[in-house]
């Protein structure tokens, strides 16, 4: 339903009323912006020399981009690669004809979907040893792999279910085996449908890398902490880190939208929420529940 269906084309009096609303909104937004700006300004947060100059210093830019953004992306994409493997294995296992494969796979997938990533992260961190240097990096990667893998398993199942039934039936009719039907017919088409959801899941993984602060993981949040501890500029650092996260996520969102338009169209994946039931949406970045 497009927007315009919800209201009539405004007449002259409505037009005036809408202008008033627009004016009131603009004033309120500007007021809010001024209030926030003024507060930060009074607290000296816009003092370029003291608070912001560090972000124009090449060494610190390098630290932010290389030790920060790059490490964060490394964690996120490591996790997504692992998650794709996990998701393919468990997603297919969940659709197995043998109950002794299907049930354990279902339990594992539902378990990791129902448990907060942070809980997994803390547990992985303690298990790997909190004294080890690399343990927090791997704790983040492992936790994100398990969680996103479980979600992708469900997405994969939804993607394969979204392939028209006739495809599988035709493949069986020409004498293909179960494995051939899955790997030659269903998976390639299912993957195409789930591509936008996969990219949306990358956004989730990337955002969740920020949870690594709780386990002292490297990446943007750590570099940010080091910078604000040194220069006492917590708020500017927060804005810079948030901007970096938001820019990468927006790029991914554009990619997901493009993939949705290019390969999927209007079709929405039906991904069940934990414990059953079917959620519509989650298809593409415009999708609903999938990528919180």
């Amino acid at each position, binding site marked *: 339903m497009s927007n315009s*269906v919800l209201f009539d084309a405004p007449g002259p009096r409505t037009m005036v009323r809408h202008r008033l609303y627009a004016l009131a909104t603009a004033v309120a937004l500007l007021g809010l912006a001024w209030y926030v700006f003024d507060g930060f300004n009074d607290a000296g947060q816009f003092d370029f020399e003291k608070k912001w100059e560090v972000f124009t210093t090449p060494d610190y830019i390098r630290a932010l981009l290389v030790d920060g953004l790059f490490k964060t992306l490394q964690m996120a994409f490591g996790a997504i690669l692992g998650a794709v493997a996990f998701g393919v294995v468990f997603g297919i296992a969940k659709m197995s004809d043998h109950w002794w494969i299907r049930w354990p796979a279902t339990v594992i997938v539902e378990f990791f979907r*129902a448990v907060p990533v942070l809980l997994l992260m803390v547990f992985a961190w303690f298990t790997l040893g909190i004294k080890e240097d690399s343990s927090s990096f791997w704790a983040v990667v492992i936790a994100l792999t398990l969680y996103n893998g479980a979600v992708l398993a469900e997405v994969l199942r939804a993607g394969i279910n979204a392939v028209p039934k006739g495809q599988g039936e035709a493949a069986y009719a020409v004498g293909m085996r179960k494995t051939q039907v899955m790997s030659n017919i269903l998976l390639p088409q299912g993957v195409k449908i789930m591509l936008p959801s996969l990219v949306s899941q990358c956004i989730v993984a990337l955002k969740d890398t920020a949870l690594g602060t709780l386990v002292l993981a490297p990446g943007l949040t750590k570099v940010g902490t080091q910078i604000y501890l040194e220069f006492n500029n917590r708020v500017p650092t927060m804005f810079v880190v948030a901007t970096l996260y938001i820019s990468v996520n927006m790029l991914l969102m554009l990619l997901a939208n493009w993939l949705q338009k290019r390969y999927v169209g209007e079709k929405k994946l039906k991904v069940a929420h934990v414990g059953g039931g079917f959620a519509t949406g989650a298809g593409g970045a415009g999708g609903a529940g999938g990528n919180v």
Partner: protein
Amino acid sequence: MEAVTENWDLFFRSFGYTVALFLIAAVLSMIFGTLLCALRVGPVAIMRAAATTYVTLVRNTPLVIVFAFFSFASPMFGLTFGFLDVHIGQFDFTEAFGAAVVSLTLYTSTFVCEALRSGINSVPLGQAEAARAVGLTFGGTMTQVVLPQAVRASVPPLASVQIAMLKNTSVAAAFGILEAVAQMRRFTNNFSSQRTEIFVCFALGYIVLVLLLSFAANRLERRWRVA
């Protein structure tokens, strides 16, 4: 096992905080999310633009940063939650709790907005056209005709959003609230040899909560199913 079995009171109190955070933020995010959604599909262009910008920005920000904003940045322009000082039984709801509720609400409401918008898109065109034809205004069309049907259609995605929010309450652990993950971390620190048992106990706690929520959502969905 003793770490948890001898400290059931701490275990349940920590989940008490989780549930309290969840319930309050769930109600608030539903309300605020619906408002945002109305702004996003409404007739006033500037409101639409503002709501769209807000949703796009906040949706793509890590929740940790939203929390950090309300814990460290907002006090600079005078937005603090120091006035919050409620004590019920053994639970203390103070400054950190207020900041956590606001962060969770503002973050989750963007997803509520998107879920509702996908619900609105699934309402047949003729419904809104008919509503306009009988002379309802935008407000009337939304509250009387479109939203009631959209809410029914968006029960499953809204359930996903709220389940995710229940799990997201764990972020509050990093901001001074002794909810389940913070308590789990504390237990694991003190009894590191029992970390697996501790992890399983807390995971089961979350699973029970998620399943309850999921069960309720399924019931609602069946009851409200649009034919």
